[in-house]
């Protein structure tokens, strides 16, 4: 059901007054869960980016609705507004929540952020769904975990209160969105369990949900193709000392591809090995497949001298690996190669001033046999993995349009 902005606002207000609790607006949150089914019956509107601030100011003027948290989804055009009932009830809570905003670290300047990101992905308008208040609770609760793996302390008692006060509907809504087993478990956990239990449980599910997302946006297809290709191509790789490098954004499937291809080639020849970013001077470590770095950009950057030293060190060990260290012939599969430093300098804690030097060093780096750039739809990856990057950095990490 589509409607213009004014009509939408009046309807929203009526609903809020009637039910005594505010509705939230969602778009595309957890699109890989069953949310679509849950919200299909609710009204939707499409508004232009310029109207976003207007809409938000309208909402904050309405009786009974307060914006307590704004969540930007990082895929450019989606956001959620959470409102709760009664100003007086929330007077004390509201400010504590407001000052300690929010799920994903986005501040109230987020409106600009939403518009920025919408422009980044060339979206002219926002499509907004209204969800049932219970969906809002569940989804924002769950989604904050999916995004960050952490949850703000001050929000926890609030969600718990909401869920336990709506006992009958809670289970229904949970099961509708997450399926029978997961939904029931989650609702029970929130009602009775302690916070750490919920925490570990949902962290376990994160993998499951990311895998679903993978299947949807074609990463698994891409991996399958690569596996197939290397199965056919292996005879062309002469048993010389060679590198094959893999590039791509976080979550593009580099590591999985490397491990897959390693398994394939290992059956065919003994001299294959996996390396991450740099050659190890001693024997290669046992690969740790399960390790996930939550925020590789969290560390502060090094100063110029340290950055240049790092580049020089890497440059030397790459060449040392090429010539001196081992005479044994082998094929190295690199999960990230040194040029990846140039793509995302912040990740490797390099000072921006060292860029020229890095460029110079990269020109004389040993050349891999093949450099494979894995392109996936950035929108989806943003929502899950890159939620900590600024807009300009996101722009630079866009996959190449072919």
């Amino acid at each position, binding site marked *: 059901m589509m409607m213009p902005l004014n009509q939408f606002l009046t309807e929203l207000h009526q609903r809020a007054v009637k039910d005594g609790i505010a509705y939230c607006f969602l778009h595309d949150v957890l699109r890989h869960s069953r949310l679509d089914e849950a919200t299909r019956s609710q009204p939707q509107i499409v508004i232009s980016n310029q109207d976003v601030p207007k809409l938000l100011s309208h909402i904050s003027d309405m009786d009974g609705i307060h914006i307590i948290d704004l969540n930007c989804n990082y895929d450019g055009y989606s956001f959620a507004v959470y409102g709760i009932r009664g100003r007086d009830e929330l007077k004390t809570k509201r400010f504590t929540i407001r000052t300690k905003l929010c799920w994903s670290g986005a501040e109230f300047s987020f409106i600009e952020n939403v518009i920025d990101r919408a422009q980044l992905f060339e979206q002219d308008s926002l499509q907004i769904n209204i969800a049932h208040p219970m969906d809002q609770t569940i989804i924002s609760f769950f989604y904050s975990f999916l995004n960050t793996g952490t949850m703000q302390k001050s929000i926890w008692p609030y969600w718990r209160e909401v869920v336990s006060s709506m006992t009958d509907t809670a289970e229904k809504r949970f099961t509708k969105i997450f399926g029978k087993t997961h939904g029931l478990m989650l609702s029970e956990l929130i009602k009775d369990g302690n916070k750490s239990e919920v925490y570990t449980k949902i962290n376990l599910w994160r993998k499951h949900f990311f895998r679903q997302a993978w299947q949807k946006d074609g990463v698994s*297809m891409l991996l399958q193709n690569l596996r197939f*290709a290397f199965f056919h*191509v292996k005879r062309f790789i002469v048993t010389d000392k060679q590198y094959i490098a893999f590039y791509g954004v976080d979550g593009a499937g580099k590591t999985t591809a490397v491990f897959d291809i390693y398994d394939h080639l290992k059956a065919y020849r003994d001299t294959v090995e996996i390396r991450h970013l740099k050659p190890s001077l001693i024997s290669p470590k046992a690969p740790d497949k399960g390790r996930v770095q939550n925020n590789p950009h969290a560390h502060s950057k090094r100063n110029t001298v340290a950055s240049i030293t790092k580049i020089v060190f890497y440059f030397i060990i790459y060449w040392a690996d090429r010539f001196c260290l081992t005479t044994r012939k082998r094929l190295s599969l690199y999960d990230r190669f040194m040029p990846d430093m*140039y*793509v995302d300098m912040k990740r490797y804690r390099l000072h921006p001033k060292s860029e020229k030097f890095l460029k110079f060093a990269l*020109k004389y780096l040993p050349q891999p046999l093949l450099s494979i750039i894995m392109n996936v739809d950035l929108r989806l990856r943003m929502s899950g993995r890159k939620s900590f990057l600024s807009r300009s950095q996101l*722009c630079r990490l866009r996959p190449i349009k072919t």
Partner: protein
Amino acid sequence: MQASAYQDLKALLSHHNFIDIDANQTPDQVVNDIEQNIIRQMAFMTMEKRKKLNLS
């Protein structure tokens, strides 16, 4: 809008053998891409070696 970092990288390392793999490609396309690139690169490397040894 800023250029993509990978495009910059490609321009910088034009002598490297970059291949873009997309989720929309068919398996055959991927095989062709990789196969041809490997063959080309192997040929290129042998040429370089021959040049260095003054064989050509």
